[in-house]
């Protein structure tokens, strides 16, 4: 299969979005960069598997997901990834985050980082990348119903987590504008 030059440019244009997604999954800038580099390298070497150029974005995110799971397996080679990844939390903040830890934005990220990995991936693909439920199901290779239930649980957990930090956030009372 011929890999057109403009396809390489498309890959490069996707790099920032892949990085953002990888960072949202692992919360580690260096690891996110490595994952994106790995994913783009694999995309080039497995380009023949891309049947429909318009599906490139989902295809790349699917490769990124595989790279992320490969990384997790490499860290824990003798354990079942499906079991422990559900409780995996992202990396804790380093010293440079001491100030930021007091900030709400950090707390939002931390709440997302504390979600089970499967929920975190669904949430970020939908809320950050604007993927449809069907696209997320294809990227993560899970049924659409699973996507919906994971998303629902993720949002509920996120809401409760933020509510515990800021009691008013999830309990606003509505008033109609007359």
């Amino acid at each position: 299969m011929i890999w057109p030059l403009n396809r390489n440019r498309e890959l490069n244009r996707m790099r920032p979005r892949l990085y953002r997604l990888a960072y949202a999954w692992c919360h580690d800038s260096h690891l996110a960069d490595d994952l994106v580099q790995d994913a783009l390298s694999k995309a080039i070497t497995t380009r023949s598997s891309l049947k429909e150029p318009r599906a490139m974005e989902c295809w790349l995110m699917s490769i990124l997901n595989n790279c992320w799971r490969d990384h997790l397996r490499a860290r824990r080679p003798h354990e079942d990834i499906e079991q422990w990844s559900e409780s995996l939390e992202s990396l804790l903040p380093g010293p440079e985050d001491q100030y930021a830890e007091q900030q709400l934005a950090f707390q939002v990220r931390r709440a997302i980082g504390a979600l089970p990995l499967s929920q975190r991936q669904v949430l970020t693909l939908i809320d950050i990348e604007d993927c449809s439920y069907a696209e997320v199901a294809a990227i993560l290779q899970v049924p659409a119903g699973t996507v919906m239930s994971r998303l629902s649980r993720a949002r509920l957990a996120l809401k409760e987590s933020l509510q515990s930090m800021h009691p008013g956030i999830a309990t606003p009372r509505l008033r109609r504008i007359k």
Partner: protein
Amino acid sequence: MNRLSNEYLSAFVDGELSRQEVDDMFKAMGEDSDLAESACELRTLKLMVRHAYEDTLEKSSSPSPSWRGHLNKAIAAMLILALGSLTGWKLHESTSMTHWVTAAPHLHKNVQQVSLAITPRPDRVILHIDNDDPDQVQSALERASAILRNAQANHVDAHIEILANNRGLDMLRTDRSQVTVRIARLAKEYPNNLRFVACGQSIKRFEQEGQVVKLLPQVQIAPTAIGEIVTHLKEGWTYIKV
């Protein structure tokens, strides 16, 4: 799928429902304030998740050990405003806006309206578009035009802002917009009541990708879309995601 389940509400917020289902949901929200409240909460959460990672786009090529701290501070400043609004003030579900606004044709369809302020200003509306779907671009312009027309008819000095970011920016670019004539006509018709605003962050990102971004002469630039939205919400504006 249970129509009143959390999954169904999420599907509504994520634009996964059919047009008829969306219409039904808006009708149900009009009759059930708790349901409307839940939808507003989910929409707020979605916005927070999206913007919590927005600046990472700029950091992808050269991450450094200290960038996260700066990033958190920048995002925190915006989210503090958003959370401050939610914690200290009231969240106003505005599907029941004033008569002259709701009288605008099709305004109630496929939009999500939120206002955050002690004193809401139904005569101030921000229409947010973040994609280049021609139907949605047309919809944004039609809604702005309809609201202003109805306001004029009711002798109300309404102000509308059409805010574009991400791919939505295309409608405001000289080389990509399919609606240059219509924008020029609307700007001329409502010189003091209609603003077209582009997200500076999106412009910067496109330029980093090598694009030359030239905007229509009627367009103003805000530093960030979220900053613009939050600032207006604090001032009582009603937010409508097109």
